[in-house]
């Protein structure tokens, strides 16, 4: 399950936005303090159309990364990458840490800040409705009157995308946006303008983000064993040496006052005292 959006075809009618809002029942857009603009992505607007100079319209939505940062950072697995492709959200186990919002390289997840019981909101590619057979394809791609955004298998869409940019090399930038970015995304774009503005940085690189964390996290068992062994060993060595020292001193001056033995002798006597 993937989506291919062709920026050159989009006419900016926002039928996709309307269809998404109706299908997912997201509610009315309002000018809240915490969003950039009322027509930017928000908890009530899971996809939006960004207007760029010279009649360029770019649809913004969750990219459904192949190796999603949001999924890898969620401490409970409330964000979940389905085998079909879409990244879905389970509000039942979410604890609201908002790490997914911090981690997303595209800054997509939004929060229902106004609610006393808040949740994360983002495009889920109508996954549950397609799964149950209620929809054949996401509401947005179905609503598009000019087939600027289409739904299909990722490999097939990549093929279509490459064919399009090869056919009109003068028009398109020779790159399928999302083919390799941060390890690839399920939402692909072909365009005649650069789409770097969709992410936090113009070029996000091809390295999947979760690897950066995993480099350290896979050392956790090693650290547990290593630090445990070193600390235990150091304790044993020093403790043994000090005990011998104390014994030697005792032998040397048997008349002297008895030294407290071991490291906790001191405290035991205190306890008895009180």
């Amino acid at each position: 399950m993937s989506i291919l959006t062709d920026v050159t075809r989009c006419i900016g009618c926002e039928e996709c936005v309307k269809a998404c809002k109706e299908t997912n029942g997201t509610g009315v857009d309002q000018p809240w303090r915490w969003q950039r603009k009322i027509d930017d992505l928000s908890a009530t607007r899971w996809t939006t159309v960004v207007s760029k100079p010279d009649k360029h319209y770019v649809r913004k939505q969750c990219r459904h990364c192949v190796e999603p940062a949001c999924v890898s950072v969620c401490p409970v697995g409330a964000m979940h990458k389905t085998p079909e492709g879409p990244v879905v959200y389970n509000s039942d186990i979410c604890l609201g840490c908002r790490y997914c919002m911090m981690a997303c390289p595209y800054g997509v997840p939004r929060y229902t800040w106004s609610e006393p019981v808040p949740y994360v909101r983002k495009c889920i590619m109508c996954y549950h409705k397609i799964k149950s057979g209620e929809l054949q394809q996401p509401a947005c791609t179905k609503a598009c009157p000019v087939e600027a955004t289409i739904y299909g298998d990722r490999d097939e869409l990549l093929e279509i995308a490459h064919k399009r940019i090869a056919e009109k090399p003068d028009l398109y930038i020779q790159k399928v946006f999302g083919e390799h970015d941060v390890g690839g995304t399920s939402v692909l774009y072909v365009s005649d303008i650069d789409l770097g503005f969709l992410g936090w940085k113009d070029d996000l690189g091809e390295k999947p983000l979760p690897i950066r964390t995993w480099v350290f996290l896979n050392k956790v068992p090693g650290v547990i064993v290593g630090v445990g062994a070193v600390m235990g060993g150091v304790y044993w060595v020093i403790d043994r040496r000090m005990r011998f020292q104390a014994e030697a001193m005792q032998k040397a001056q048997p008349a002297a006052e008895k030294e407290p033995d071991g490291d906790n002798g001191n405290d035991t006597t205190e306890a008895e005292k009180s």
Partner: protein
Amino acid sequence: MRIRLVKGILWVLVGVAATVTIFRFLKGLGTVTALTDTTPWGLWIGFDVLGGVALAAGGFVMAACVYIFHLEKYRPIIRPAVLTAFLGYGAVIGGLMFDIGLPWNIWRPVFFWQEHSALFEVAWCVMLYFHVLALEFAPVVFERLPYKRVYKILKALTIPLVILGIILSTLHQSSLGTLFLIMPFRVHPLWYSPILPILFFVSAIGLGLSMVITESVVSSWLYKKEIEKDLLGGLARAGSYVLGLYAVLKIVDLAFTGKLHYLAGGSWEANLFIFELLVSAIVPAVLFAIPAVRRSIGGLATGAGIAVFGFVLNRIDVSGLSTISATGTRYFPSWTEFAVSIGIVSAAALAFFFFVEHFYVYEETRDDTPEKYAVPEPDPVGGVRLYWTPMASASQYSLVFIIGAALGFALMPDNAVHGVVPEQTPVKAARYVEGLQTKAEEQPLYSYALFDPNEHENPDDGEMRNMLLIDGDRNDKFVLFDHEKHQEDNGGKNSCGMCHHMNKPLDRATSCFECHRDMFLPADTFDHEFHRTKLDESGGCVQCHTDPAAPKNRATARQCDDCHKTMRVPDSFVQVADKDHTGIAPGYMDAMHKLCIECHKKKETEKVELAPDLGRCGACHQGLDSSLLTVREPYPQQAPAS
């Protein structure tokens, strides 16, 4: 007295935070925080969680020194260090309960495993370490309780617990750095580093040592007790090595990743980075390296204080300030966020005092206990009952707590009671102008014009009136508004309530169109939805919006006449005025009388029955009064005003 004053202030701060707590949980994060979708982590994560965990690092550092490395001379400060760590972690968990959206789900990581998440690991470590610290500190409590058996078991567990504590601390102190490894685009390159976890771990040790020094100085000041100067000097010496190592690591890391040029730019990030590195590591490391400084209390306090400030700043930088350049959003914590952060720290400090006063946290307090806490005898002569001291202070502290809570209520922003409301759309203020009222041809209507001395020299042109220039419908279209006339016509002084004081959300007065209802009734019967459905749902758009490159609006669409050749009846007033606005009638009345009615009449002669019998005047007009008119489709049916 010193301690009572400090405690009183702390209780006020806790009181303020208590009020904020109520609104946080009743009205949600949006009401009490300044967080945004692009800055979802703020002060509570940066200071309370990241700073709090790092500040509590003294616990495991001191435990390692004393129990593992047998540096027996530091034994007197192990208890306060462990207590600080325990309370620090309590504060971290407290802060988290405020910050996370669904705090009742905080236990979920116990059962839902996600080992790829750094936060999952942090959650487990903090949870376990909090309990380890509780057990490490428990002997202090149990030695004063009569359960000798429990005390002995706890004592025997000390070494395994200390080792477990060191493992857990190593893991999560570094994992807090790992949290940010996944945000290479959000965190500014100066702070982003592949060795962030190592930097966090080393800095936690440095900060832990500085914090132990700071805390010893503060509590010796509060309780007027002798300071363990040579102990602290030793810690400071160790601190200078650790902080020096940290500074070297930071600079070498920048050099190796080729980021030194970012420092040269003179950007505010570069300045902040240099300042932070100076106060967190370099200055305190240099101070601690000077023997004279290590021997003076002032020197120790200064060095440690600077380091503590520097590292808290470091955590705030990494989690917040360094992301501004990427996200372009400015976030400054709201006062309620500050209040909660300060309140949590105050509560932790109060708990610290409680333990210090009731248990042997400091060794030297052991000797003078019995008479210190004795109940004073009632005055035998006067019969005056003296307050039992703890009771007297309890009532004083309750009072200041309530004062704090009341202060919190008083300062709470307007929206706190109802929860946060959407941003106000800007409304332009009304302006008084001189207007000229002239009689229109048709009575009793008037026409208004801005008074222009060049044009309106003759006073007979009309009557000069004071008028308002208002944007009544908030659509950037200003009109001359005759306030006096509206007042007169609607019943004088009693009519204010018709427009004002309606308590409408986001509004100060009723918009014009709410009374002048036909103002925005377009005399346009085009039903977009109907056409869309008829023309094969959405696929049909292109049948009217033929040019895919053009924005889809009325101007670029095909004209009604193109398809509906016979729509206009011969007698119609409706003219095709200009090609861009096909089919707009001069007004509702004209459209109705000359388009709808004509067509209905025609259809009736063809024996076609249409729902509203528009051929009959009475179908709309209930009388001669125009206010009794029924406004027909496509507008919502409305009953005639009674």
